[in-house]
C-alpha cells in the first residue's frame, strides 16, 4: 500500500483554483488567472457544440463578438462522446454556386464567350461530327440511326450558325474599320441604321448565292415558304383544291 501523497498547497495551486461551497451544491468559480483574459460567463458546463465539431467561440455578455474572442480557441464540453459519424478533420464545405445568378461570377457576354470558347466550334464540334458520321455508317437499327441523324443535324447546325455569326461579325468589323478610317481622314462619323445593315447583308448573300449557283434553288424554296404562309389569307371556300 502506498501512502497517499499529501498535496502541498502551493501558491501555484492557489493562483489556479478557488472553491466556493454553497448550501445547495458545489460550483467551482473561475480561476484567478482567467478573469483577466477570458470573457466572464457562467461556470461549469460548456455550451452545446454544433454539428460537425464546428464550435464557435463563447459569446460575451454584451452579445457582440469582441476582437479578442475572435482569436480565442473554441470551448466545448468534454463530456459528450464523439459520434460514430464524425468529422475527423475539418472538412471543406463545398459551396454550390449557380453561375447564372451569382454576382461573383460576373455577367454573361455572348461575344466574349464565343471568343474564349471558340475552340469548341473549331475542334470539338467538327470532331463530334466526324464521329457521328462514322457511327452512322456502323450502327444498325432505325431508332438509333434516327437519333444519331438528329444529333448530327444539331452539331452541323451549331457549326453553321457559328460560321454565319463570324461572317457577319467580320463584315461589321470591316465596316466599322472603314468608318473609323474615314473619321481619321477627317470626314464626319456616320452610323449605319439597323435596317440598312440588314439590307446590305441581304445584298451580300444574294451575290454569294449567285456566284455559287444556288440562287435559283434557294429562291424557289423561299417562294414556296412564303406562299404557304400566305395561304392562310385565302378565303375558306377556296382553301382546298377543287375536286
Amino acid at each position, binding site marked *: 500500500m502506498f501512502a497517499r501523497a499529501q498535496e502541498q498547497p502551493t501558491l501555484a495551486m492557489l493562483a489556479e483554483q*478557488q472553491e466556493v461551497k454553497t448550501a445547495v451544491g458545489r460550483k467551482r468559480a473561475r480561476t484567478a488567472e482567467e478573469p483577466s483574459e477570458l470573457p466572464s460567463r457562467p461556470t461549469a458546463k460548456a455550451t452545446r457544440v454544433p454539428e460537425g465539431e464546428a464550435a464557435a467561440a463563447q459569446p460575451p455578455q454584451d452579445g457582440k463578438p469582441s476582437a479578442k474572442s475572435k482569436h480565442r480557441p473554441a470551448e466545448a464540453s468534454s463530456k459528450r462522446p464523439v459520434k460514430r459519424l464524425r468529422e475527423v478533420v475539418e472538412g471543406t464545405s463545398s459551396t454550390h454556386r449557380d453561375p447564372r445568378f451569382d454576382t461573383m461570377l460576373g455577367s454573361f457576354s455572348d461575344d466574349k464567350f464565343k471568343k474564349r470558347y471558340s475552340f469548341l466550334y473549331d475542334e470539338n464540334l467538327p470532331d463530334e461530327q466526324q464521329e457521328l458520321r462514322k457511327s452512322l455508317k456502323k450502327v444498325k437499327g432505325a431508332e438509333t440511326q434516327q437519333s444519331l441523324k438528329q444529333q448530327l443535324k444539331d452539331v452541323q447546325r451549331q457549326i453553321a450558325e457559328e460560321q454565319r455569326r463570324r461572317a457577319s461579325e467580320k463584315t461589321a468589323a470591316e465596316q466599322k474599320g472603314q468608318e473609323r478610317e474615314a473619321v481619321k481622314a477627317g470626314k464626319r462619323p456616320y452610323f449605319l441604321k439597323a435596317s440598312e445593315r440588314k439590307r446590305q447583308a441581304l445584298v451580300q448573300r444574294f451575290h454569294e448565292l449567285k456566284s455559287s449557283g444556288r440562287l435559283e434553288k434557294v429562291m424557289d424554296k423561299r417562294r414556296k415558304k412564303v406562299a404557304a404562309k400566305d395561304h392562310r389569307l385565302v378565303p375558306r371556300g377556296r382553301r382546298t383544291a377543287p375536286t
Partner: protein
Amino acid sequence: MALIKRRKVSQPGKAPKRRRPEPDQEADLDTDIWGASEEEASDEQDEGAVETAEEKRLRIAKAYLQQLRAEGAEDSDGGDQLPGGIGAALRDQALEALGQQSRKLADRIDSTATASTSGRVSRCHWQPATAVTLTADDSKAYSVCKHGQIAAVDIETGKWTSFRASSVSKKQAAVTQARDGPEWVKHAARAAGKAALLAAAVSDDGQLLAVGGGDRFVHVFDARSHELVKSFPGHRDAVTGLAFRQGTHELYSCALDRTVKTWNIDDRTYIDTLFGHQAEVLALDVLRAERALSTGHDHTCRVWKIADESQLICRAAGMALDCCRYVTGTEWLTGSSDGSLALWTQFKKKPVAIIPHAHALPSADPSTVAADTDGAAGVDARSWIQSVAAAHNSDLAASGAGNGCIKLWALRSGKGGRPEKLDDITSIPAPGFVNGLQLAHSGRFVVAAVGQEPRLGRWGRIAGVRNGVLIHQLSLQD
C-alpha cells in the same frame, strides 16, 4: 432493507457533524433516520455564512507559511520580508504559475562544446524505443520499447535494468510467420503491435512508473522495486500517451480510441473519461494544474479543463500533431508529421510561431521541400518530428526526428513576458528515429529514446542504428 449510510463530509474548520446511527449499533431509535437527515440539512442551510474563496485562500496560505517555517528555513537574507528563503521560493512559484520562465538556460548553452561531445547510447532494447521519462531529480530515466520491455537507466553510470510489463508474453510478442499463404498472412504484425509499449510516465516523487501500449492496459509499477501495482483496463485501443500530474499520483492517459482518461493511482481507481478528439490521440502532457494537453491526428490540440468539464480547441492548418509538451503553464510546443515545430498559447486558436521543416533532410532539394508544405505528411518519415521536450520553467526546448539530430531551441519572449518565438541554438547528433525526448530539469543533459523505426509504425527504417536510450550532456556556461 439495509439502511443507506450517508455520511456527510464535514466542512473544514467546523465541528464534525453528527453521524446517523448505523443499523447494527444500539442506536437511539427515537431519532428517526429521516428526521436526522432533515436536521442535518437544516443545519447546513442555517449556516448561510459559508467560507468564501478568499477566506479559504488566506487560511491555506497561512497554513503553508507555517509549514515552511516548521520545515526549518534558514536565516533570512536581506531583502526578503519573510524569514528564510521563503520569499524567493514563493516568488519563483508565483512566476511559474504565471507562466513566465524564471531560468535563462538557452543563452548559456555552449553550442560548439555541446555539438562536439558525443552522447552515450545504452543499448537496453531489442526493438526501437518508443518513449522515455525522467524523474524530477534527474537521476533515473525509464524507457519502453516495441518489444514490451521497460528499462530503468541510471543517468550517472549509464547502467540499466530491464523488466517486462505487457500482458502479452514474450513468446506472443515475437512476430509469428505462417508457412504459406499470401504476404499479408505470413507476416502477422498485430501480435507484435499488441506487445509494444508506446508511452511511459514517472511520478514526481519517483515512486510510481506508468507504462502503456498496444495491449490497451495502463500498467503502473513501483518504480524502485519494479513490482506491478495495478494494470488498469478501460481503454479500447492502444495507449499512446501517459502523464502524471506534478506533485500527485493522478495519472492521465490517452489512446487511439480518441479518449483521454484520468486515474487515481493511490485509490487504484478510474476517475473520468474526456471526449472530444475526432481521431486518434497521439500525445499528452500535464503540469501541476488540473489541466491536460493532448494532441492528435485530427489536427487539434485540446486543453482539458478538468474542473470545468470543458476543453479548449486549438486547430492546426492540416498538420497531424504527433507530440506535444508544455513549456509554461499556458504555452506548449508541438511537432507534426509534416516536419514543422509549432509554439502555441492557450489564448489563441492558431499557433504563435511555426518553424516549417525544422528537421529537413540534407539531401532534399528545395523544390521537394517546398512542396511538402500544405500539411501533407512529408514523404520521408525521417523528417517527421516525433518528440519535443522542454526544460521545466526555462526557455530551453528540444525536438527530435529521424534525420540524425536533436535540435535545441531557445524560446524568446515577447511583450507579455510569454514565449513568442523559437530560435535555433544547435544540433546534437542522434542517429536513428528519436521517439522520445526529455530535457533535464537542470538543463545539463538530454535523454532520448532512439530506434530504427518511428514510434507508432514502420513508415521508415534506418538499419544499423542502435535501439536504446541516448544520454547527451549539454555544456552550460556559468
